[in-house]
């Protein structure tokens, strides 16, 4: 990998997308699918599946490095803010500037307002 920012990948998250991802993963948790149920939870409404954002990060990696991005890696991400129906997500990242993180990338998935929905670090193998 190199010192350039990752190319970004975007995804429009509507109710159909969430339903399709639920069917792909067999994850029919009503917090993702049932507005009335979700409204009564601490999330206050329907949220998209967290790993949908992870898959979008993979797409950003693929666009940046092709198949070799997946020869081996360690990813650690936190879902810091819910992804709501109707948002367009953008996944990307940049080389980490933290001490001891040479070769690593600080990765993110952001919503329409530009704020983080997912943050974390990617450690490509075997350089980190």
């Amino acid at each position, binding site marked *: 990998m190199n010192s350039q920012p990752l190319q970004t990948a975007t*995804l429009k998250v509507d109710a159909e*997308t969430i339903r*399709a991802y639920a069917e792909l993963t067999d994850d029919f948790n009503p917090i993702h699918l049932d507005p009335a149920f979700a409204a009564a939870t601490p*999330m206050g409404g329907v949220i998209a599946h967290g790993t949908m954002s*992870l898959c979008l990060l993979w797409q950003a990696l693929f666009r940046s490095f092709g198949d070799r*991005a*997946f020869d081996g890696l360690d990813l*650690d*991400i936190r879902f810091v803010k819910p992804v709501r129906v109707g948002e367009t997500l953008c996944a990307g990242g940049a080389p980490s500037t933290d001490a001891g993180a040479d070769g690593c990338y600080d990765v993110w998935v952001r919503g329409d307002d530009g704020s983080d929905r997912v943050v974390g670090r990617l450690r490509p193998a075997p350089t980190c």
Partner: protein
Amino acid sequence: MNTVAPRAITFDDFVPGALLGERTELVSDALAGPWQRIFGTRPEDGAAGGAEAASLAVVLMMRAYLAVVAPRPPGNVHARQAFSLQAPPRRGEAVRSVVTCLDKELRRGRRYVELQVQGSGDGGRPLYSARLSLIWAA
């Protein structure tokens, strides 16, 4: 005949260190097709390439966790995810995913459950190791 729905697995049921179960599933068109309908069908989208394969590793992790740890209370939330990908699964490969409870903890009134899912492919080749941090609803 009356049937009683099985009780949902609650926070109290988890035992750190306990093996919860496993699932073996084939990497097939039945998974790749739906992935492409969401994320794109073009080569530059990673369809039939690395992005799709790495995503299907994540999908298999989730499907294994959800099949093994069931029934669950509604409203669980995914808080954090660590994912080590050793090799992407290949189309047609049978992936064995083993689910273990690593830890559980009450923090600020929330019930956190840590699960590990480890996936291996044909011949036992290691594919992925994942750690899910979930806020359990009950």
